[in-house]
């Protein structure tokens, strides 16, 4: 039962993180929140028994994707219109 509560909590946080990442106007914040989203996703998968997928998501989604997004945003405008 304890696991299910964690599961539910993560799932709800995921939706929150996704909405925040898409709503904030500052793109750096958005990409960091997206990193948080990826990491929550990674936790969820680890909990569901997909350790390899979780590992990959931790390195790629929370790591490389965020770094590459930030690197790009530094070369563009930081503010978004929506």
């Amino acid at each position, binding site marked *: 039962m304890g696991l299910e509560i964690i599961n539910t909590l993560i799932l709800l946080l995921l*939706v929150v993180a996704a909405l925040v*990442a*898409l709503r904030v106007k500052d793109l750096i914040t958005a990409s960091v929140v997206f990193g948080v989203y990826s990491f929550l996703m990674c936790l969820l998968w680890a909990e*569901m028994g997909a350790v390899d997928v979780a590992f990959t998501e931790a390195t790629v*989604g929370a790591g490389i*994707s965020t770094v590459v*997004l930030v690197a*790009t945003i530094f070369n563009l*405008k930081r503010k*978004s219109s929506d």
Partner: protein
Amino acid sequence: MFEDGLIFLNELFLERLNYVIYVVLLLIGLHAMIAKNNFIKKLIGMSIFQTAIILFYVSIGVKEGATIPIYLPEHDPHGEQAYATGGPEALTVEQVTSYANPLPHVLMLTAIVVGVATLGLALALCQKIYQGYGTVEEDELMAKLEKEDASSRKPKTHPAGKSSSKPEVSSRAKRSGTNSVGKTTAPQAKKSSGARKTKAPVKKATRKSDQKKGDSK
């Protein structure tokens, strides 16, 4: 009828929360890809869309009470048990149910890789668009593209053969052609907002340097 509904809701929100949340995330991502104006936001939406699908696949692989798909020591092909019996043996049916299904995990490893490859490529495209047009906002880009089209068309038209129907045709062609994902904008509205906004980047360009200095540190 009412009780059926309650049972359904209970099932939906307690046992199948994963399936609900994946659909919600997928729709959030899809909506962002279609409706967001900023390209980076579109790409974040794209990643959310893809991870939602991955979440769905991983949910398929879950088995009640099963462990991760790595052999426990007693089934390890290089473990003591295997040496004692002279080699690894196939698992029995009961033992099979004690491991999670590895196939969706494998598929999703591939999908994650494809996702990051697409993201990298799309970010490179964003930079190239920004180098060319100074914006990564869809409406501003559309306005600039229309301007560019109009100016590239003018000098080539023959002065004698310039017919009155020309501009109408070209705008019609564009309406059908340059329609993008966010094709739902009425062309009229796009034009007016574009005209308003085209002035902004000029001003911003001068301010950009100090603004960015502030941003970077």
